């Protein structure tokens, strides 16, 4: 019997979008996945993971290379391959107007499962996914996590020779993610399932036996998680930020140091990867702060690989100048946003229930929670896009229920999909948005020059927006939102769909803006980004679960040094114990 369930050699695939330069989605990719184990395909968004998955199941044809799946040539016999494997695309095709049971029945019929097999299999899948009580519910009415579990159940109505999962946990809350992985591991153990899973979460990839790292269409490295971790051996340290220095600023300063490959706040400390084991960043030398060695994780190795592969050298984000007020405790600053007993209902559905909080000047305030938690509704009320059903809300000293237009003059807004005009150039986009804010020609020219410099867009001034990579688009939309020098900046999921390096840069910008006194409200579904925030608010089912500094929350939960995913899981589990319905 074959030991390899996937054998890919020299796979290339190029797309030719209309009016745009060709995109090499995959270049000379090799991959071997062994039978009966979990293989992970990791890489940032746009790395080519989905293209590779589609090639594997014969939904696309490769330009070059050979591809054997379950021993069959995919290019020659796509249907034969499709008969043998199960595939869960990123956007799994659940029929939202069918019930859980009807969705399962449909896939069972398509795979020709007999009634006897079906009974036993369904019971097991439903039990595993926790969907047993919901078989009569329409799939469209399930939460995000439950939808993913149902998608998995549908792909597993029979035990396939190969299971392909394309980012099964993207946008899913940490608790549901953990449950999905428990199901996967159980299946591999009990049924010797062969699985290839793509993911952007490194802690998930470390649960796999083999890991392949894909970036910009090329395979950067492959091996067991332990093997890959060795890349970062001796270069990982943890630095404790002293009370007088905010974590975010320390991280941002470290990242600017030439002997630092990567720095990220984790568990109330900054995790640093240095270029060599002996290197000591200047800021640590200057203050005499210690770096403690820590064991490398897969994520560290991943960041090192991405840095090595980065096409252009890292663009230095302007540092903090001495004049920037380094606010350590924003809570001592005046209140910029106040919400008291905020409620928003849609019909008889309560999207946000009795929520009160204050945001102070220069604070970075994070709204966290899974999809459907109510964070978008809260966010929209704050920026005056949606009136509150009841409660008091003031933004920059203006009562939002009375003077919405006036309040809007003080805020900048970066929408989730970056509302830019794709066919306009960077400069034209900025001109347009400046015009909307009512800047005079001279003011506008001055501000455009300033923001283009600030966000390193000067070189790309004449580029058409739709041809810019994701990171640039995000910077451009931030620049546009800052043209009128708003006191408060609202960012809705600004980091989704952006690669990790661009995310680091983004947070450096945020750090600088807040040091200059801009108040920042940000939503994100990346729990680890909560570490950058001064305070975070976690919502679930419209209710405020927790509000406070990340450290404070960890302390309250008796989880010192824990990462934000663990914190989130603990909070939700606690809420469940209190008798709430949970997720």
């Amino acid at each position: 019997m074959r030991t390899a369930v996937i054998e890919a050699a020299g796979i290339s695939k190029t797309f030719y979008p209309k009016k745009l330069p060709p995109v090499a989605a995959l270049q000379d990719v090799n991959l071997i996945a062994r039978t009966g184990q979990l293989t992970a395909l990791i890489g940032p968004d746009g790395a080519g993971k989905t293209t590779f998955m589609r090639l594997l199941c014969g939904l696309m044809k490769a330009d070059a290379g050979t591809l054997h799946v379950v021993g069959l040539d995919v290019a020659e016999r796509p249907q034969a391959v499709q008969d043998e494997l199960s595939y869960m695309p990123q956007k799994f095709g659940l029929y939202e107007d069918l019930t859980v049971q009807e969705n399962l029945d449909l896939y069972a019929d398509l795979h020709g499962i007999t009634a006897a097999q079906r009974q036993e299999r369904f019971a097991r899948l439903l039990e595993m996914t926790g969907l047993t009580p919901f078989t009569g519910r329409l799939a469209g009415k399930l939460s995000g996590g439950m939808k993913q579990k149902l998608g998995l159940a549908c792909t597993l109505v029979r035990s396939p020779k190969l299971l392909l999962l394309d980012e099964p946990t993207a946008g899913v809350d940490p608790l549901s993610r953990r449950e999905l992985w428990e199901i996967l591991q159980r299946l591999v153990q009990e049924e010797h399932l062969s699985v290839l899973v793509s993911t952007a979460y490194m802690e998930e990839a470390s649960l796999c036996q083999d890991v392949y790292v894909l970036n910009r269409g090329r395979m950067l490295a492959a091996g067991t998680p332990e093997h890959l971790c060795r890349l970062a051996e001796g270069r990982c340290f943890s630095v404790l930020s002293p009370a007088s220095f905010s974590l975010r600023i320390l991280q941002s300063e470290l990242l600017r140091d030439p002997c630092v490959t990567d720095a990220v706040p984790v568990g109330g400390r900054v995790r640093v990867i240095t270029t060599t084991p002996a290197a000591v960043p200047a800021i640590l030398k200057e203050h005499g702060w210690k770096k403690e060695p820590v064991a490398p994780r897969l994520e560290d190795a991943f960041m090192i690989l991405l840095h090595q592969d980065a096409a252009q050298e890292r663009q230095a984000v302007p540092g903090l100048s001495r004049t920037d007020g380094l606010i350590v405790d924003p809570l001592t600053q005046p209140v910029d946003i106040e919400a008291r007993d905020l409620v928003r209902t849609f019909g008889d559905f309560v999207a946000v229930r009795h929520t009160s909080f204050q945001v102070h000047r220069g604070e970075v305030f994070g709204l966290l929670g899974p999809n459907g938690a109510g964070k978008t509704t809260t966010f929209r009320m704050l920026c005056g896009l949606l009136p509150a059903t009841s409660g008091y809300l003031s933004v920059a000293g203006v009562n939002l229920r009375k003077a919405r237009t006036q309040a809007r003059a003080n805020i900048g807004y970066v929408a989730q999909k970056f509302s830019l005009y794709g066919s306009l150039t960077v400069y034209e986009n900025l001109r347009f948005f400046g015009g909307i804010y009512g800047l005079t020609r001279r003011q506008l020219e001055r501000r455009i020059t300033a923001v283009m410099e600030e966000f390193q867009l000067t070189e790309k001034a004449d580029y058409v927006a739709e041809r810019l990579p994701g990171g640039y688009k995000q910077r451009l939309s931030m620049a546009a939102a800052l043209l009128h020098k708003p006191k408060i900046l609202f960012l809705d999921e600004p980091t989704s769909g952006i690669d990790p390096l661009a995310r680091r840069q983004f947070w450096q910008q945020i750090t600088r803006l807040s040091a200059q006194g801009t108040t920042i409200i940000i939503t994100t579904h990346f729990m680890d980004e909560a570490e950058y925030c001064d305070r975070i608010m976690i919502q679930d089912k419209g209710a405020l679960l927790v509000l406070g500094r990340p450290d404070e929350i960890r302390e309250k939960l008796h989880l010192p040094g824990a990462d934000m995913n663990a914190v989130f899981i603990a909070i939700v589990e606690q809420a469940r114990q209190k008798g709430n319905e949970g997720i």
Partner: protein
Amino acid sequence: MKLNRHSLRRMGALTRKEFFQLMRDQSSLLMGIVLPLILILIMGYGMSLDVKNVPTAIVLEDPSPTARQMVNFTEGSAYFSPVYVRSMRTAETLLAQHDVDAIIRVPQNFAADVNQGTAKVQVILNGTEATTAMSAQRYIEAAVLTWEAGLSVRSASAGQATTVSRIWFNDANTSAWFFVPGILMLVLTTSGVFLTSVVMAREWERGTFESLFVTPIKIGELILAKVLPYFVVAVFGMILCLIAGNVLYDLPMRGSLILLIGVSMLYLIISLGIGLVISALTKNQFLACQVSLMISFLPSVMLSGFLFDLHSQPLAIQIISQFLPTTYYLQLMKTLFLAGNYWPLIIRNGLILLGFAILFIGLAFRMTRKEME
């Protein structure tokens, strides 16, 4: 495509799913069944070329009983609702404000002129409402002639007057007869092209096809299972229209009913084929809707001879209409309903429609593939 037990079971599962969706998503049923009924009512009753209750300003500059008697026809008539005004100026204002659609002006000395045989009545109509204006004009002319006939004994005018009015009172009926075959065509076009292209595009858009593709399902099975429910809906809508046409408008059925249903199904297959081709090209509900509107629905209404008689169209449009399956189907329908089994036309148009059906269904199967772009 081999039809074996597995294949039938897979198609059964998909068809069942499609029916569930159809029953739960009222908009499709609305489009397939309720819309045709509304169309048949609107076009049959509302769109008849009859005009009723035309608001008319009457300016009596001659206060004599003769003048009064002359405009008496507007009183108690279903066709006019008269408004008496004192001056021509007021009447003109009313016309300009669209408060009235017509002005009848009886000038001074009307009674005296009648006796001399030189009497004149001025009629002013609002030309922006061309249909109403034309109808109102003919009503007024007819009424005046009738009045004249009663007054004098000139038999020639009397005969003319009655002839004109008879054409008009028949018209409501003929326009319904003329519209029902067209509505049948519209029903089949909407269910076929619109519904099919939109529901297929929805599967592309929501990513449900990507999941379905990687199962043992064959593309042919997928297409057949997808269009079968909409075929049924369209046939149901068609039967409803036939019944409604018969019950409400006494539509004659001079040709063979079986033949009529047969060619309708053939036309339906063409529509489904076009819908499939559109969805394969666009893979997007909004675009599919737009394209369906542009290339099937509008030409069916405007260029096929449904609303406008093709013989009175410019040559270019007559040529374009020759490339539309709808033109041939509509000819067949009108013949079968109103004329009878005229075989040369039935065979010729039937063959042309068959050609279209093979073309579009062939294209649909060729273009819909188990592939993601």
